[in-house]
């Protein structure tokens, strides 16, 4: 019996050995390959173009080195998940990757990113980067771990044709929330089949719900999400309830889209591709990258959008200082902490982000420039007529509190908006649910009533 068992074991062991022999050897031996992971979608190909160009340039300058591009198809959420899964293991981690600014801190905590301080000090072009943008690549220890590609702001994009038809004076510049509601009601009265003022809400549109919607409201009330001084999450604020009430008004008076449509994850495609070009939508809160969809070569190319569209800053609740609110995010390039060729990887990063490639990418994706030479370039300034307006919003912009808890907090906010627009909870109830959720996520002692 024992002998049989031992034979079985040895057979098993032999099989395992055979299996193990089949796994590929260490790719670092012999040839040198830089693996680059980034996001690519049908409507976002600018980054792919940039990396294709950088690959050619880099391989020509570094004989014997292969740049292996690994575009990941998926929306922002899926890309983040896929990247994090790849980063978990050194054998699958890319050498250089495209990283959302709000994930930098938690990914540094996880040990995924390489500290770039000493290398950046030796890179002459680092000085051309905007100081505020440099902050986005810093972690809690003060070190820099990621280099910004560009940034963005959020504003109200509106269709001038729709506004003219409703008799609204142009250019439009609302100074309070009430102005927005008044204008929306006017549009509704003039053209009942037009959606007057859309704001994303619910979990369907994910992070878009809070970045292009709720936070513009919340930060305009004087309240915030997080109190950086006490390092605690804010609960019970009147601003939170007011913001939800505003959404409720928009949706219950049918000034925004129907709730069922708002919860469709693809609603933004209709906003850019269908409703604005067909003058079926008055206005929406969207990012400074909006023209990238409409310009020549964009996924919803719309000749003449420059004349038909207008842009206005999102006002504070009652017109209080500084008069407008914007949110910023943006993306960076980072080097994997476990890369076998840190120097080559960093050199590839600087090739990808040199003046030429940065300019082409910034223009193609309607980013706000973070390099002073790109910002000064006539090609950037004339990329679309809105560059100046949306770049000016950097002065009033806010960044998300990018802690490890943030994704869950964001989901709780999205849930609160969903409950309100579907009418399942009142703004007071939804705000109370949010408070409970936050206490559950971070612990009661990390919340503060404001």
């Amino acid at each position, binding site marked *: 019996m024992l*002998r*049989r068992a031992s*034979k*079985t074991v040895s*057979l*098993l062991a032999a*099989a*395992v050995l055979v*299996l193990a022999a089949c796994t590929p050897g260490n790719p670092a031996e012999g040839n040198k390959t830089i693996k680059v992971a980034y996001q690519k979608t049908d409507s976002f190909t600018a980054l792919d173009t940039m990396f294709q160009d950088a690959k050619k340039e880099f391989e020509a300058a570094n004989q014997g080195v292969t740049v292996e591009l690994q575009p990941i198809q998926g929306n922002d*959420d899926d890309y983040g*998940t896929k990247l*994090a*899964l790849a980063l*978990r293991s050194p054998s699958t981690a890319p050498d250089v990757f495209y990283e959302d600014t709000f*994930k930098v801190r*938690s*990914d540094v*905590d*996880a*040990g*995924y990113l390489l500290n770039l301080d000493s290398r950046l000090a030796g890179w002459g072009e680092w000085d051309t980067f905007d100081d505020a943008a440099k902050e986005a690549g810093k972690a809690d220890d003060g070190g820099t771990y990621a280099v910004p590609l560009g940034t963005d702001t959020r504003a109200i994009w509106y269709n001038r044709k729709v506004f003219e038809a409703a008799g609204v004076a142009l250019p439009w510049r609302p100074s309070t929330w009430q102005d927005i509601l008044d204008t929306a009601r006017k549009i509704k009265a003039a053209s009942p089949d037009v959606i007057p003022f859309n704001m994303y809400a*619910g*979990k*369907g549109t994910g992070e878009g719900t809070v970045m292009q919607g709720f936070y513009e409201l919340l930060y305009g009330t004087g309240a915030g999400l997080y109190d950086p001084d006490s390092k605690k999450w804010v609960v019970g604020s009147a601003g939170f309830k007011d913001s939800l009430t505003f959404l409720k008004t928009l949706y219950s008076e049918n000034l925004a889209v*129907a*709730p*069922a*449509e708002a*919860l*469709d*994850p693809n609603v933004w495609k209709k906003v850019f591709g269908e409703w604005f070009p067909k003058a079926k939508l008055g206005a929406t809160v969207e990012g400074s990258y909006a023209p990238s969809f409409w310009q020549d070569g964009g996924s919803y190319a719309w000749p003449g959008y420059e004349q038909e569209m207008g842009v206005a800053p999102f006002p504070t609740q009652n017109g209080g200082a500084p008069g407008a609110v914007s949110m910023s995010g943006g993306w960076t390039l980072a080097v994997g902490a476990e890369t076998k060729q840190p120097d080559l990887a960093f050199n590839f990063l600087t090739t990808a982000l040199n003046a030429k490639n940065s300019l082409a990418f910034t223009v193609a994706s309607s980013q706000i420039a973070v390099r002073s030479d790109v910002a000064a370039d006539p090609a950037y300034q004339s990329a679309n007529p809105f560059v100046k307006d949306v770049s000016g919003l950097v002065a009033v912009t806010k960044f998300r509190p990018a802690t*490890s808890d943030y*994704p*869950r907090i964001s*989901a709780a906010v999205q*849930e609160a908006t*969903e*409950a309100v627009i*579907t009418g*399942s909870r009142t703004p007071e109830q939804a705000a109370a649910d949010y408070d409970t959720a936050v206490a*559950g996520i971070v612990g009661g002692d990390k919340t503060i009533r404001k």
Partner: protein
Amino acid sequence: MAATHRTRQLLRYLPVLPAVLLLLVFLAGPVLWAFHSSLTNAGLTGRYARNPEWVGLENYQRLLQDPVFPLSLALTVLFVAGSAIVGQNVLGLALAVLMRRARPVVSATVGTAVVAAWVLPEIVAAFAAYAFFSRDGTLNQLLGQFGAAETDWLYTVPMAAVILANIWRGTAFSMLVYRAALNGVPAELTEAAHMDGAGPWQRLAFITLPVIRGSIATNLMLVTLQTLAVFTLIWVMTAGGPANGSTTLPVLAYQEAFKFGDIGYGTAVASVLILIGAAFGAAYLRLLRERNP
């Protein structure tokens, strides 16, 4: 001599070895890994991504306090009962019985149509179902012919929509199982019952069904376990919404583990799912054993 005999006996186990190895690596491995992770605070990012800490049953305690969990559990049971146990199983049996009586042309046509949904990759079937139920989808266009108002099916009745979609997608399997089983029912048995004056329903209830009991139990087990794991279909059609209205356990596990990066908690949900699957499996196995002593 004895040694060679033993070797020969041992060699007889060789053909099963690959299967056993594969099961160990791809089934037992992940299951154990999931149970282990559910006892840690492993994350997708942040401090605990690389160096998770052992937290014992903390994730399970949190699960008990999570308001979404009981809802999710109920929705999972509803989904399995509605789309697998009743939907696919009964419809598959009905189709199999009817197809035996139908003309060969009709039977072949129906069979092809039903199997077509089954051979589609899950993601394609999911998009087809989304296109059917969505606001400007086929269902509303069809109903529009009769003057019915547009309804947002995925929003107003998300569970009904995903249950119907899963019945559509999975019935072929039950149908094929039952067709094979019915072919195995001895013709003289039903003929004898016919002679004794039993009607079609009586023949079905007292002859056919008892004879194919084994196939019923096997089929129930397979479709139940398959349906418990359905994720793509629901994720594409409703993403678990609105307001968690169609968040079954696989969707909840995915959200927790990958959307919120909380792998420990997500695997705790997945472990509960595995336990439910195991309970169903054990119940059906028992059923099989009792009927076939």
